[in-house]
């Protein structure tokens, strides 16, 4: 009688080809081996399934893994792979069942626990996920488990706990740049700038071309006014990731800080070209154009930004400033009203509104806004020791004086004052934009909105640190507010009439 060939004869060869990613050779050997053994060689099927999965044929791979599981039902590994394929197909519940099955065969496998945890995350059962992930960490510590655990806390919005986890993870593997960067970003969100910078710096020493870390570190440098240093850092990623909208946005704002407005506009326009729906870039574009006194362009960018982000008071304020300069007081007032309605913390909004009202002669309303502003200032004073833009304080004092001293005391003077002021403001604006008041808060907002985006893609916290600038302007004249139709503020009567 004939001899049976040894089933596992070429397993080693299949494996060697597989780990070298020489899939063509691997498939050839597998085919040969399967022919020889009439499809009994489990390992050959197993690797074939792995290759299918790498090639994206998940359904086929699932079927093959199931064949493997039939050939040797005692193997936890086969079940794990079946579950993995199910997981990739998005059948998380089925995957959990198979993983539980596998866990019966192999009690002490961190991978099973980890993957179970990940499945539970996708099913939004965070408590179970946490239990499994902690169990996985208990069995064997892996960076990946820490990352997932941190992600759960981020999804639950618990920054402090996430930071705890990432801290432990960084202790465990201090050279993992992804962990370092994420921790740095979290610190940034919570406001520990020093620690954030430290971790981002560490990440950069291990991996000097880490996109996320450079962008975050660069934006921090920008916040402190180190535009040149930030620019040199950005150069590194500009060659690596030349099509990144946040990068060009930040570069643009660096140039803005250095008062190279044309370059700033060029960069921002590139960013806008790359990400036409990003309101932060539009915001910045509007701001730069305001500074350049191109009010008509500024109006377009700002109204576009409002269409994408109708919930931000500052945007309406800037729009109002643009409108004032375009001599449309009517709509400017509407925009201010909306800004005041939406904004809770920024006294600038009220101040600018008050100035406009005052210039229009509506003294009583101006006074109301002025008081509103004082309220906000007091509130902020209590909560934190922020310093205010000196220019703003000066303006506020002048306005206060004008309002309280009364009508008799020269109508013209205060009116002229803010006006002449405005000229200087618009040019000296750039110098003052980096006051902690504006920037930190804006950065925080940018971060939180970035975090909000990050919930949609799965694992990474993507940062798009749009550096937002605050503007402080005094008023001028009217035109109309209009492409902004989408937002609730206005429906100017003229539209209907025409």
């Amino acid at each position: 009688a004939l001899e049976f060939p040894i089933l596992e004869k070429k397993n080693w060869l299949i494996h060697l080809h597989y780990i070298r990613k020489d899939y063509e050779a691997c498939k050839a050997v597998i085919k040969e081996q399967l022919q020889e053994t009439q499809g009994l060689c489990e390992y050959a099927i197993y690797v074939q399934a792995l290759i299918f999965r790498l090639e994206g044929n998940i359904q086929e791979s699932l079927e093959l893994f199931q064949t493997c599981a039939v050939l040797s039902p005692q193997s936890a590994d086969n079940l794990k792979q079946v579950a993995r394929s199910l997981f990739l197909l998005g059948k998380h519940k089925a995957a959990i069942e198979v993983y539980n099955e596998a866990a019966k065969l192999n009690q002490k496998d961190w991978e099973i626990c980890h993957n179970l945890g990940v499945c539970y995350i996708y099913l939004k059962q965070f408590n179970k996920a946490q239990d499994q992930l902690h169990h996985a960490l208990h069995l064997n510590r892996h960076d990946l488990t820490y990352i997932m655990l941190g992600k759960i806390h981020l999804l639950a919005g618990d920054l402090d706990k996430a930071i705890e986890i990432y801290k432990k993870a960084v202790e465990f593997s201090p050279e993992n740049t992804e962990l370092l960067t994420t921790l740095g970003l979290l610190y940034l969100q919570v406001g520990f700038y020093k620690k954030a910078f430290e971790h981002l710096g560490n990440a950069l020493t291990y991996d000097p071309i880490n996109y996320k870390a450079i962008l975050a570190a660069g934006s921090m440098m920008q916040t402190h006014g180190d535009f040149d240093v930030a620019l040199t850092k950005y150069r590194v990623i500009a060659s690596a990731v030349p099509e990144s909208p946040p990068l060009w946005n930040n570069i643009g704002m660096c140039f803005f800080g250095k008062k190279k407005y044309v370059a700033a506009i060029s960069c921002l326009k590139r960013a806008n070209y790359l990400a036409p729906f990003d309101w932060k870039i539009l915001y910045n574009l509007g701001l730069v154009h305001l500074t350049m006194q191109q009010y008509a362009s500024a109006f377009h960018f700002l109204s576009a930004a409002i269409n994408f982000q109708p919930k931000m008071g500052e945007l309406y304020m800037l729009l109002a400033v643009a409108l004032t300069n375009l001599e449309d007081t009517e709509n400017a007032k509407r925009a201010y009203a909306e800004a005041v309605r939406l904004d809770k913390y920024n006294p600038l909004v009220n101040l600018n509104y008050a100035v406009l009202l005052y210039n229009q002669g509506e003294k009583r309303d101006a006074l109301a806004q002025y008081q509103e502003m004082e309220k906000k200032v007091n509130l902020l004073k209590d909560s934190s020791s922020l310093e205010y833009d000196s220019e703003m304080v000066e303006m506020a004092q002048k306005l206060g004086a004008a309002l309280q001293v009364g009508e008799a005391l020269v109508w013209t003077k205060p009116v002229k004052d803010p006006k002449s002021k405005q000229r200087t403001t618009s040019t000296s604006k750039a110098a003052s934009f980096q006051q902690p008041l504006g920037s930190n808060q804006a950065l925080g907002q940018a971060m939180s909105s970035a975090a909000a985006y990050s919930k949609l893609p799965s694992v990474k916290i993507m940062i798009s640190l749009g550096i937002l600038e605050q503007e402080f302007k005094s008023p001028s004249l009217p035109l109309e507010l209009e492409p902004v139709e989408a937002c609730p503020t206005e429906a100017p009567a003229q539209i209907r009439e025409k």
Partner: protein
Amino acid sequence: MAAASPLDFDSGKAESNEASSKWLDAHYDPLANIHTFSACLALADLHGDGESKLVVGDLGPGGQQPRLKVLKGPRVLTESPLPELPAAAATFLKDQHEPRTPALALASGPCVYVYKNLRPYFKFSLPQLPANPLEEDLWNQAKEDRIDPVTLKEMLEDIREKAEVPLSVQSLRFLQLELSEMEAFVNQHKSKAIKRQTVITTMTTLKKNLADEDAVSCLVLGTENKELLVLDPEAFTTLATMSLPSVPVFLEVSGQFDVEFRLAAACRNGNIYILRRDSKCPKYCIELSAQPVGLVRVHKVLVVGSNQDSLHGFTHKGKRLWTVQMPAAILTMNLLEQHSRGLQAVMAGLANGEVRIYHDKTLLNVIRTPDAVTSLCFGRFGREDNTLIMTTRGGGLIIKILKRTAVFVEGGGELGPPPAQATKLSVPRKTRLYVDQTLREREAGTAMHRTFQTDLYLLRLRAARAYVQALESSLSPVSATAREPLKLHAVVQGLGPTFKLTLHLQNTSTARPILGLLICFLYNEALYALPRAFFKVPLLVPGLSYPLETFVESLSDKGISDIIKVLVLREG
């Protein structure tokens, strides 16, 4: 010379350009037809004539013609066919007799072939694995015809489900058969004893009791059934057996068998197990969470290459020391040992055609090769002490000799700021026109804005008017009820008198299909003739556009035209 220029180590400049390279190009034959792995390369003075030869266990093109080749210099000295593909080759001293020429061991299938003076000397076969007693019992019953094939099948399946010991090939094959074939199969095979054979996956050598360079060594075999065997060099008996949780792929051994040794085995489950002399099973375990593609010990550090393009350094207790990212996938790894300078380093062949040499995590040298290197070996070849032998994916053979003056300087590979930091940002330029426009906007911003707004209103007004007009003349028909959102669009093709009228009907609702619609044409019967003026519409799946065709014949020869109205009606 190279030693003088530390600049040479910058990754960008480490190419082997003639003047500053540390290597002499001794030989390059792109058509040497050698297809092998690092494990199947060995260098040894097989004849005791002071000239070291290269032993290659060649898999042949496509793994078809396995051969044992011995090269002296660039020439193939002898070539002999092998019965099976070689898994590993090793040279070792098997006894103390003079002359002290090393023996050659070649692991292939379930056997190790030992050659002395390049003549076959001994064949060691792995012992048979014990068969499952239940299975054996069943087949014995079958032999005596006490069991019918169907019951046999059920019983065997039961064993497969539960038993720890896997079934033999014979039983597995039997389980696959159809009912009709079983009888014949049982009759044919029932008299044979149940056999379970395994194969060798990897092999290495371990000094027996002395640490000397020319001490007697044992062979260490890794097998497919998750075991490690240590063989006695003279009698070829099994000295020790150790079991692993997975199938070993790469082995790395240090120490002496009789004294104390450490054995690291990289396995198929992505873990590396570390065993010691007195341990029957692994003492430490390194979980890589990736597949290892190479395992090399440099002094006391285990260097592992993973298939996620990175090199990791581990202590002998499994603690991770460092990680280095590679620019491409690692294909193979081996040890570079320069005895004269006491240097040990790791060579890694990458998929992008580079061979990188690392000492710990510092890059010492980069060799660029015309093809991706799939196997590497460094050592004494011919009469030259430091020779690097590489074979490529396409079957080429590259031999390079390390210059005697060459010194690998540590820390030379340190990277400064990335080169991109020095390049200028490509900020888009703005034209003169742009600047002029900017100036104009500053001057006449308000006017521009007003004009724009006015035009915008006019545009909207016009759009609204056009819309109303379209509605009134029903040029783009709109569904009368909200329950059936439909889009209808008609095209007339042809020169006449027969025209083709194509209606494109689309269901624009998001989810609901529409059933039971009718189409009706209203036309002047004096002018046109249609084959069917009234017909049913098929089920409309949301989103798809259904072309419905009909012919129209023009009856009049006066060139008059009229309107054909299309009505879409609901049944009932």
